[in-house]
């Protein structure tokens, strides 16, 4: 018999906050994944909402390509507010 597939679990800890990845679990289908996520990851009121996604549907970037993916942002300091000179008189901008 086939094994239960792996699911990734995302929990919203309270309204106003995003769902965050908190772990994974095995379940036969989406409903069971939700039920198991409730038992495994919210035993102490850690959440008000749960998302489950079958792990095979997650597409991840390859760490080997981290250089070309993320390094170009490094030399664009002009995207940060501290790049710009202001007169001392202006305290907040």
């Amino acid at each position: 018999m086939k094994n239960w597939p792996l699911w990734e679990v995302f929990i919203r800890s309270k309204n106003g906050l995003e769902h965050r990845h908190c772990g994974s679990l095995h379940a036969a289908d989406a409903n069971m994944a939700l039920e198991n996520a409730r038992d495994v990851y919210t035993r102490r009121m850690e959440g008000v909402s749960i998302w489950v996604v079958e792990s095979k549907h997650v597409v991840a970037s390859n760490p080997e390509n981290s250089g070309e993916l993320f390094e170009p942002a490094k030399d664009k300091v002009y995207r940060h507010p501290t790049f710009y000179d202001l007169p001392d008189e202006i305290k907040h901008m």
Partner: protein
Amino acid sequence: MSQKEINLLEDFEQKIKDDVKIEPKNWMPEKYRKTHIRQISQHAHSEIVGMLPEGNWVSRAPTLRRKVALLAKVQDEAGHGLYLYSAAETLGITRDELFEQLHSGKAKYSSIFNYPTVTWADIGAIGWLVDGAAIINQVMLTNTSYGPYARAMVRICKEESFHQRQGYEIMMTLCNGTEEQKEMAQDALNRWWWPSMMMFGPTDAESTHTAQSMEWKLKRKTNDELRQMFVDQTKPQADLIGLTIPDKDLKWNEERGKHDFGEIDWEEFWQVVKGHGPCNKERIAARVKAYDEGKWVRDAAMAYAEKQAQKEAATQPISKTA
């Protein structure tokens, strides 16, 4: 080693040096992967097998308050086992392989669970001493170098502190009770003290994995350092409720600012590790029985899921993309 591999290894070692966590898709030496699978799965198995000695008392807890606490603790341990199995799976081993290793005896779990729980006080002693020792080890591991393991540990540590407190409260209540109840608490301490001391593993001089584990920042403290912390932490707790730790050599060493303590019976330790403890066979047999008897449920759930998916596919409107 090719130039590419040398670069990868240097990059890995730099990450370890800079305390940058290693994540599942990052390159890692094969030995790092294997060691982590071994350690994380051993830890997961310990949580799962650890439910058995305590489960023995769920139906016999003396009050409803004790019963709900014990049930919650056992349920936490199931959860902790699941977090840890998931962490191990990120290293490329399947849940089935992990179970197979546990059931065949190829994988180890903490030897402490091969001792029997013969009285209610044993539930107190386990929470106080066994969970107390486990927390010392686990707090250290929240800082371990492998990301998924460290994250699982943070979650586990948050949940574990109630385990130790409920155990100590049981001991305290017994100590404030009748003479017989106090004796029962002392008897449990006498039986669980040395096995708890053994939980930290062989001495640094004898430990085959410590040096490598420290280098990889898998462990941040040695077995002996952790054991010392456990003794220093537990002795005043025992004094406070009028119990005596069964070690005639246990005394405060002014010069070291720590307690000295007696020699552990390593012969007993290795006997239990090798499978000759009081309950090794019973524990694995109970685990295998539960797994085998649950097979039809797992299969039925999968068959149901597949059938539902087929039904859904059949009733799906075709015109959607048209």
